[in-house]
Every structure is written in structure tokens, then in C-alpha cells.
């Protein structure tokens, strides 16, 4: 559901308008995520903000003073750059997930299911299994929806503290607990002897630096790296605990939901973005992956937390007049942030964009934001998007009979979907859901490759024919 928000260039004589915190989206997501994960023991606390940490971008849709054509041209030119800027983190996340799945057997063992998916898939008949998976998916989706709505409600009524607390607990859980388990499993796989003291030190450092980077200030690369790692951890948890058919169904339904939530006027994510825009706030930083650094610098003065928090969602800032670099977390985050948030919530624990910080930001004069350099504008992508892309590719590599062929095919399909989405973002210039197109392509290619291409390639390879 990550929305690639196309930031309209909000130039006003060179001054960038504030971006709404896009955390909206992430927040709602967080809530939903949290709910989902709450029940499982390891579930991360609701990252209420996890998803919506996207700083609400103040997408003040001001009229662009620039020449329209110039805009378009710049848009396309920088659009290509943004595509590349998004490719790298998405690829990295997927690579990490696939590498882990292939090597650490823990994540492919069936050790039970989440409490959100109570129906088992080990049934006798196919019909029963189908029914169970549909019920599982329905439960999961309703949890997500409820959490999203809760997040939007919290945001609307300015219960910022709750959201922030939620996000912080989620990120805590994700950074410490899940990475501890991950590290333990990696050590087990490679038979590395390790003592508890070293592990405690490592995990402590990793977690604390992560919290600081995500919720406060930190180098951009480090923050991006942490966001990628968190997304990968979350995706791994999903891959492990979701049974087969449920996982595929959930992916399909989530992309539909993403589409609906972001584009419908009454959709929660859209409301989140709009509210954030109205209030000129940034969305929660912990839920959005952003590829620019500038807004960090800008925001540092005003809302360090907001900046940090949003896991920079990559928005497609198509318009050169990018919104202030500050948390461009547009409400569009809701697009991806939802999923992202949910995931984040679960994993990281509630990451809340501090309402205080946001209030602080709003209190600051709005023209304190420096004009953004068009080239520096980056794209924001919700973390939920990362997570679901990685879930798709990870599941493909874990359970496909075609093995690497299927994984490769899904990988290419997702990247092409991302390209298309970014292109649409350039054309429409508003927050878009990043999930539907990519997930659709990915699913189509997965099933097609697994069932049709695999036997073909197998036979060809057996006889050593080349096509």
C-alpha cells in the first residue's frame, strides 16, 4: 500500500512548502499491524506509527509557478533517477530475504502460525484447505483494516502520544527481539559458537543505534540501511508464519485493499494523507523510506523525530518543486505505509511519530524550510511495500519447485511493476499505491513460472538444449 506520493512541486518562488507528514498512512498501518502482531508472542507491539511514520508531507498542492513543460521534462529526467534510487533498496531487501531463506532453514520450518491466522492448512481435503486459507486471509485483512482505521482516528483526534508510543514499542520489539532471533538462527546455521555477552552487546548496540537512527537523527545511509533491515526481518517473519495459500491470498487481497485505501476518497490512507496535509505535518518517519537527505537536514531543526521516524517512504516526487524536504511523508504514505506500518508495527513495535514533535514542527514558521534542490528530492516508498515485495519473492524462493527461475522471474516482475508505478506517479503526481501493479505482476509470474515454465526449462536443461 505504499503510495508513492508524487509530490507536487510546491514551489512558491523557490520556497518549498511544507510537506505533510505522510505518517498518516503509516500510522494507520501501524495500528493495523500492531493489532495483528499483538497477539503473537513475538508480535511486535503495534507500531502504530510504524507504518504511518511517513511524515505527513505537506503536500500543499500549490500551484506550480514553474513552467509546466519544464516541469514535465524535469519530472521525466528525475523520474528515471528516482526509479534507480528505489531499485537499490528494494533489491537489497529482496536479496537479504532470499539469502536468508536459502541458507537459514529456520524460516522455512513450520513452527506454528500466527494468532491472526487461526485456521490451519493441513487439512484433508482441498476444499477445506481453500476455505481455511480464505478465512485466514479475511481475518488478517480485517485486522489490518481495523488498525489502519484506528490509526487514522488517533491521528485525527491528535492522540499523538499514543501513536508515538505505539511506534516506539513496535520498533523496539522489532529491533531487539526479532534481530536477536535472527542472529541466533544465523549462528545456528553456520555453527558459530557465541557467548551471551557478545550477543547481548551486539544486539544492544544494533538496537539502540537503530532506534536513534529511525526516530531521531542519523546519517541517511544508516537510516536507510536500518529501514531495509527492519523490512527484511518483518518479511521473514511473515514468510515463516503464514501458511502457503494464506500468504498468496493475503498478498492479492492486500494489493486490492491498497488500491482502494489510497484512491477512494473515503479511504483511510487517503484521509490520513489529507489530514496530515491540512495540518502541515509530516508523517511518521518510521514508516517511510525516503531516498533524500535534504529533508533530514531541514527537518532536523524542526522535527528531528519526525524526520527520523519516517522511514522515508519513497515518494515519487515527481514534481521538481518537491515539497519541503522535510518529511515528505505524505499522507500518501498511507499507500504504502499501511502495509509498511503494519509490518513495522509488528516488527518494530509502535513507532510513533511524536505528536509533540509534529506540533513543534507546526509551531515553527513554515518558511523555515529551505528551498529544496530539485535534484535532491527523493522518492518515498512506504515500508509496507518493501515488506510485501520481499514476502512475495521470499515465498517464491522458499516454496517454488522452479527454485531460482521462479525467484528471478518474480524479482524482475516486481521491479518492472515498480517502474510502471513510478511512471504513473510521474504522470498523475499524487500519492499512488505502490503495491497493486507489482504484486499482480509478481503473482502472475510466480504461478506461471512455477507451473508452466519450470517443467519446460527442466527438460531443456536435462537435454542441454538452449533456446
Amino acid at each position, binding site marked *: 500500500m505504499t503510495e508513492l506520493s508524487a509530490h507536487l512541486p510546491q514551489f512558491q518562488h523557490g520556497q518549498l512548502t511544507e510537506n505533510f507528514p505522510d505518517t498518516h498512512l503509516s500510522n494507520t498501518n501501524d495500528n493495523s499491524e500492531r493489532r495483528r502482531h499483538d497477539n503473537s508472542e513475538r508480535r511486535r507491539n503495534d507500531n502504530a506509527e510504524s507504518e504511518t511514520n511517513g511524515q505527513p508531507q505537506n503536500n500543499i498542492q500549490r500551484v506550480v509557478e514553474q513552467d509546466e513543460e519544464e516541469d514535465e521534462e524535469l519530472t521525466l529526467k528525475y523520474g528515471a533517477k528516482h526509479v534507480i534510487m528505489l531499485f537499490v533498496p528494494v533489491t537489497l531487501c529482496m536479496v537479504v530475504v532470499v539469502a536468508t531463506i536459502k541458507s537459514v532453514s529456520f524460516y522455512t520450518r513450520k513452527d506454528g502460525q500466527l494468532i491472526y491466522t487461526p485456521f490451519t492448512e493441513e487439512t484433508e481435503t482441498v476444499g477445506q484447505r481453500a476455505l481455511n486459507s480464505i478465512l485466514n486471509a479475511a481475518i488478517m485483512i480485517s485486522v489490518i483494516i481495523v488498525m489502519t482505521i484506528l490509526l487514522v482516528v488517533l491521528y485525527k483526534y491528535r492522540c499523538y502520544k499514543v501513536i508515538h508510543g505505539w511506534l516506539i514499542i513496535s520498533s523496539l520489539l522489532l529491533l531487539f527481539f526479532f534481530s536477536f532471533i535472527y542472529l541466533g538462527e544465523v549462528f545456528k546455521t553456520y555453527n558459530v559458537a557465541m557467548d551471551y555477552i557478545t550477543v547481548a552487546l551486539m544486539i544492544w548496540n544494533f538496537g539502540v543505534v537503530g532506534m536513534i537512527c529511525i526516530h531521531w537523527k542519523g546519517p541517511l545511509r544508516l537510516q536507510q540501511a536500518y529501514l531495509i533491515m527492519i523490512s527484511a526481518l518483518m518479511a521473514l517473519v511473515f514468510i515463516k508464519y503464514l501458511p502457503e495459500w494464506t500468504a498468496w491470498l493475503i498478498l492479492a487481497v492486500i494489493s486490492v485493499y491498497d488500491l482502494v485505501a489510497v484512491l477512494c476518497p473515503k479511504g483511510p490512507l487517503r484521509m490520513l494523507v489529507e489530514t496530515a496535509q491540512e495540518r502541515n505535518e509530516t508523517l511518521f518517519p518510521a514508516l517511510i523510506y525516503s531516498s533524500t537527505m535534504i529533508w533530514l537536514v531541514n527537518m532536523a531543526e524542526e522535527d528531528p523525530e519526525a524526520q527520523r521516524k519516517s522511514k522515508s517512504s519513497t515518494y515519487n516526487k515527481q514534481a521538481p518543486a518537491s515539497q519541503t524536504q522535510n518529511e515528505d511523508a505524505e499522507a500518501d504514505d498511507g499507500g504504502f505505509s499501511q502495509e509498511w506500518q503494519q509490518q513495522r508495527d509488528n516488527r518494530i513495535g509502535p513507532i510513533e511519530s511524536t505528536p509533540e514533535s509534529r506540533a513543534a514542527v507546526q509551531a515553527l514558521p513554515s518558511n523555515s524550510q529551505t528551498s529544496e534542490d530539485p535534484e535532491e528530492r527523493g522518492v518515498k516508498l512506504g515500508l509496507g511495500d518493501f515488506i510485501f515485495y520481499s514476502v512475495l519473492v521470499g515465498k517464491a524462493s522458499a516454496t517454488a519447485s522452479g527454485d531460482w527461475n521462479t525467484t*528471478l522471474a518474480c524479482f*524482475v*516482475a516486481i521491479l518492472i511493476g515498480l517502474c510502471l508505478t513510478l511512471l504513473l506517479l510521474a504522470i498523475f503526481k499524487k500519492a499512488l499505491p505502490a503495491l497493486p501493479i507489482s504484486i499482480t505482476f509478481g503473482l502472475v509470474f510466480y504461478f*506461471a513460472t512455477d507451473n508452466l515454465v519450470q517443467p519446460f*526449462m527442466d527438460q*531443456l*536443461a536435462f537435454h542441454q*538444449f*538452449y533456446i
Partner: protein
Amino acid sequence: AFFWLLSLLAASLLWFVSRALSGPGDAPLPLGAAAAVLLQELGRFACFKLLKKADEGLATLSEDGRSPISLRQMAYVSGLSFGVISGLFSIVNILADSAGPGTVGIHGDSPYYFITSAFLTMALVLLHTFWGVIFFDACERRRAGGLGLVVGGHLLASGLTLLNPRYEASLGPIFILTLCTGLWAFGSAGGSFRSVLECLSCK
């Protein structure tokens, strides 16, 4: 890459259907392979059309009316991506298996399976790149001869691999084919003996 995958998908569909129709014999495999080749070329053509459109769009938007990416570069990139994805699909499972336990050719097949696979894949990747360049060039200048030769060359290469595991018969000709195609692509991309000399002497 995407287009190659699409064509592969279509080819597998065809093969699957034909296999279901003709029973569990081995016969449909060459047929499926030939169909796959043709569909790949079709995919390459679709790629060309799309890139041409995008190129025109870029040209109109750029400041001086020219596209920032030359058609040659696009041809090279598209050929390369075709080659890479085709090579990956051909080799990655073999690589994964080669990292595991086992003996090559224990059931009487050739023990040189891995090495020849590696060489063939390399040749194929190079061939795809060259074919991409030649294909785009031929389409650009509307010379049917180039097109026909690319398709014919592809069919020939595929057909030669059908002769495996008689490696002498397939590896040799394929490499010769690769060399010739490479020279031809180089020539069609505007290079010449003189330009090679200039490059080598670092003028």
C-alpha cells in the same frame, strides 16, 4: 528482460499444451524449443517498438530535440538484458546444483556437463547481445535481410544445441557463430578495422 520472460512464458504455454496433446513422448521438446526461439524474437521486436516510442517521447522533451540515449545504446542494453536473463535462467539452477553434493554424469551422461553448460551459456549471452544490436539496427533501417539473419542465426544456434551431448558438433559451430555475429554487430554499430586500431593506439 521482462519481454524475454513474457516470450518465455508464451513459449512454455505452447509447449505445455502441445505436450498434453501429444502424450508423454519426447518429441515436442524441439518443437517447443523452436517455438520459444520464434517467440523470443517476437519479444525482441516488441521491445524495439516500445523503446522506439519511448525514445521519441524523450526526444521531444529534451532541450535540443535529440534523445539523451542513442538508439545504439538502447539496442545494446536491450540485447544485453535479453542475454543476461536468458543466461541466468539457463545456468542458475545448474549452479545451485553444482554447489551441492553429487557426481557429474554418474548415470552415463557426459562428465563435462557443467563446463559445457558454462561455455554455452556464455556464448548465448554474447549472442543475444549481438543479436540485439543487429536487430535494432536492421529494424531502424528497415532491412529485412538483417532481421532474417538474426532469426535464422538464433534458430541455428538453438538447433545446434539440440545436437548435445555431441559437444564437438555443437560447441564449435556455436562459437564460430558467436564470433561472426559479433563482428557483424560491430560492423553494423559503426565500427571498423580502423576504429579498432585507433582505439588501441589510444588516439
